[in-house]
């Protein structure tokens, strides 16, 4: 830039932008804090159970009828090929259990939610379907937002 402006540029460069208000840091910290959700592991429990159930349905004929050479064995024409086609999660109810203080000192709401998870399997060849519903309780810890 022009030599004429060097002094002015230097003077402007010495001005330090004002430090942001601490509330801005707090707000960003809140947004960037990981969302704490207790009980998410339960989400997989019905899925795992359902998968086990489906596997059992597929393998059942083999377990139920031991291979016997003398007696005729009734077998299905083909093993069912059930595939999960729908998963529904219905929130049945929710209760606010008040405030708790997190490990970092931040206040949070403790919410207890009752869900009903339903998983549907279908065999596209035979149109046979299997529906399985299980109640699930979830406790959510939601950091308080002061905005």
């Amino acid at each position: 830039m022009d030599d004429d402006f060097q002094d002015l540029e230097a003077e402007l460069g010495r001005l330090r932008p004002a430090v942001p208000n601490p509330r801005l840091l707090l707000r960003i910290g809140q947004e960037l804090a990981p969302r704490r959700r207790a009980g998410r592991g339960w989400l997989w429990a019905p899925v795992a159970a359902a998968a086990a159930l489906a596997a059992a349905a597929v393998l059942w004929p083999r377990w139920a009828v031991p291979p016997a050479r003398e007696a005729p064995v009734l077998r299905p024409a083909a093993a069912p090929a059930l595939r999960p086609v729908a998963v529904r999660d219905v929130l049945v109810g929710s209760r606010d259990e008040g405030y708790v203080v997190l490990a970092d000192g931040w206040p949070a709401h403790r919410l207890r939610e009752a869900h009903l998870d339903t998983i549907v399997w279908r065999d596209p060849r035979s149109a046979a379907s299997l529906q399985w519903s299980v109640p699930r309780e979830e406790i959510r810890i939601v950091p308080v937002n002061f905005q």
Partner: protein
Amino acid sequence: MEEFSENESWKDWFHHHGPKLLLCARQWTVSMADAEDVVQEAFVRFWRRQRGLSGEPLALLLTSVRRAGLDIARRRMRRAAREAGALGEEPGGGSLFEPLPEGDDRRAAIESALGRLPSEQREVLALKIWGDLTFAQIAHQLGIPANTAASRYRYALAALRHELTGADCHG
């Protein structure tokens, strides 16, 4: 411009660059509260989704800040003016710079002179001096030729010097 370190915490990074971001955001917003909103929105988006992108982090963030700033300015200009009038606040609200050790008069004079610059000159000046961007980067940010960015910068300096010389003569 320094590289972004993967291990750096957002607080360290924000401590270093937050003031520059806020100052630049202030060029595109009608109030300090809006500038803070804009910086928050842009920074959170950057930290969550964009910090792995190639390019210089500060330039990327300034692009995001500018976009959000212009959006919010358009939405809130009328409302902010109304509120400032009702509360008797200075429309800008909040000092742009840290106080100078040798006294605050000069800082106030510069800040006031900056406020009277045309916005297209002021944004170039802020991005160059306090945003540490090159003219090429500023040109990219604003969608203008680099020569235009350099011209606006020169005009801004000339106008500032004129204003400040006048202030010295009269004050």
